[in-house]
């Protein structure tokens, strides 16, 4: 019974492919905004989470103003804490690379350290691309933020979804070859580039995080660029902790299922490669669906 239950939860984890629109509907032409994929998860707790997220944003706005007017260091500690919490909660929402990070660890047999690195890198790249985007648009291009965000998001989404699709296809094809060659070293080497945590993190985290963009902009509007960057880093760290937790859960789930079949080598072999094939197929499908929806 426990096995069945855990397998169901694990399967659900694998299927958790929801994503959200990164386009701001107020400033994006309707034809450019993509459809949001429905999630299999239904929960009413989110009302409280939304409320909490709103409160955190309000508190951050207040403290940033206080830091500006009183020129004290004290609000910055609180701000760092709120920004981190905001990142933790914010990244639990759709998108933010959870599905792909999870699929990576399911399909690429990383060590624990590699799995953790992927979780952290995805979030940090996502957060840092938001910081980089704002600095570029405000101080180098001197362009409109809303229009640049629209264009930047569109371009990075196309690149990111293409890379995700390609990564999924390669994982899938490699896993098919594994079925026949039983995981030869040659096949593992061929997939190295796409099993590389940096490549995965780059392809997923490329899209600027709108949450980081808004906090950065607010701080910059008050002349606090340094504080904006610092808060962006704190939000990215918060997002990293959430995604890391999900990656850890995924790795534990996979390891648990494989350990259940320790005594039956053939069953273990089938399970391991099934997970890999399914993960590759899902990543490729997710990437393609998102890519087609945005073209």
């Amino acid at each position: 019974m426990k096995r069945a239950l855990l397998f169901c939860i694990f399967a659900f984890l694998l299927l958790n492919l929801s994503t959200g629109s990164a386009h701001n509907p107020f400033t994006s032409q309707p034809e450019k905004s993509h459809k949001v994929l429905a999630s299999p998860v239904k929960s009413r707790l989110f009302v409280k989470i939304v409320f909490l997220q709103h409160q955190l944003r309000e508190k951050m706005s207040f403290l940033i103003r206080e830091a500006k007017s009183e020129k004290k260091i004290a609000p910055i500690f609180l701000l760092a804490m709120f920004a981190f919490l905001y990142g933790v909660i914010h990244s639990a929402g759709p998108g933010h690379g959870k599905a792909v990070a999870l699929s990576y660890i399911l399909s690429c047999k990383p060590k624990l350290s590699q799995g953790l690195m992927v979780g952290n890198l995805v979030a940090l790249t996502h957060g840092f691309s938001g910081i980089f985007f704002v600095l570029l648009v405000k101080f180098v291009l001197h362009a409109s933020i809303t229009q640049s965000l629209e264009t930047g998001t569109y371009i990075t989404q196309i690149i990111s979804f293409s890379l995700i699709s390609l990564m999924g296809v390669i994982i899938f094809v490699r896993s098919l070859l594994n079925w026949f060659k039983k995981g030869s070293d040659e096949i593992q080497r061929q997939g190295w580039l796409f099993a590389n945590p940096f490549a995965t993190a780059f392809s997923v985290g490329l899209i600027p995080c709108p949450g980081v963009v808004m906090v950065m902009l607010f701080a910059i509007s008050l002349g606090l660029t340094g504080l904006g960057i610092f808060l962006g880093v704190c939000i990215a760290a918060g997002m990293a902790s959430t995604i890391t937790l999900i990656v850890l859960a995924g790795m534990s789930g996979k390891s648990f299922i494989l350990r259940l079949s320790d005594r039956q080598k053939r069953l273990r072999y089938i399970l391991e490669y099934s997970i890999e094939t399914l993960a590759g197929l899902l990543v490729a499908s997710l990437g393609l669906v998102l890519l087609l929806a945005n073209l």
Partner: protein
Amino acid sequence: MVKQINYNKYIVMVLLMLAVIGVGPVGSHPHVFIAQETKIIFDENGLAGFKIHWTFDEMFSVMISEDFDEDKNGRLDKREIAIIKEKAFGYIAPHNYYIQLKIDGKPFPVKFIKDFNATLNNGKLSYEFFIPCHVTAVKTAKKIVLSPYDPEYYSAVYFPDKKHLFLKNQDPFEIETKVERDMSTLIYYETVNPLAIFFKFCLK
């Protein structure tokens, strides 16, 4: 000898995972927070429409004012308001301007709005607009439901704690209003019943 599996460790992991993901997919996404005040306006025949007032959170307000308050004077002039209407409001028209209406149980699509205005007040952005919706009052009660939400969930529209519902020219009519969750509608990936203004009115 068969190695014992430590279930506790996995159960903790699964609980942690559910804590994060179980509430996740819809739980935390909004990037824009909007406080809505609603004025229900009547004329001599019955319902005339709704005056909607939105106040945005400070961070989104900055994003819009940075781009559209071109002279950076903290106020929006007619030209700036016209640009905002086109480039930072009009695009939500396909979503009924986030105002979902039902008249006697039937959806009423909000196709257009009137009298759009945008203001900046201490850095906070507000939008105000009128939704024409003519419903003639008769002896039997007409039931209206107004529920504000963004179906894509980029924005969270909520009713503030202070008084947020007002009536205008209501004297000739008998009116009952209440604000509660609309149990007949599920939003945000079918997880939540949205808050809605329910009211019914008829001739006195």
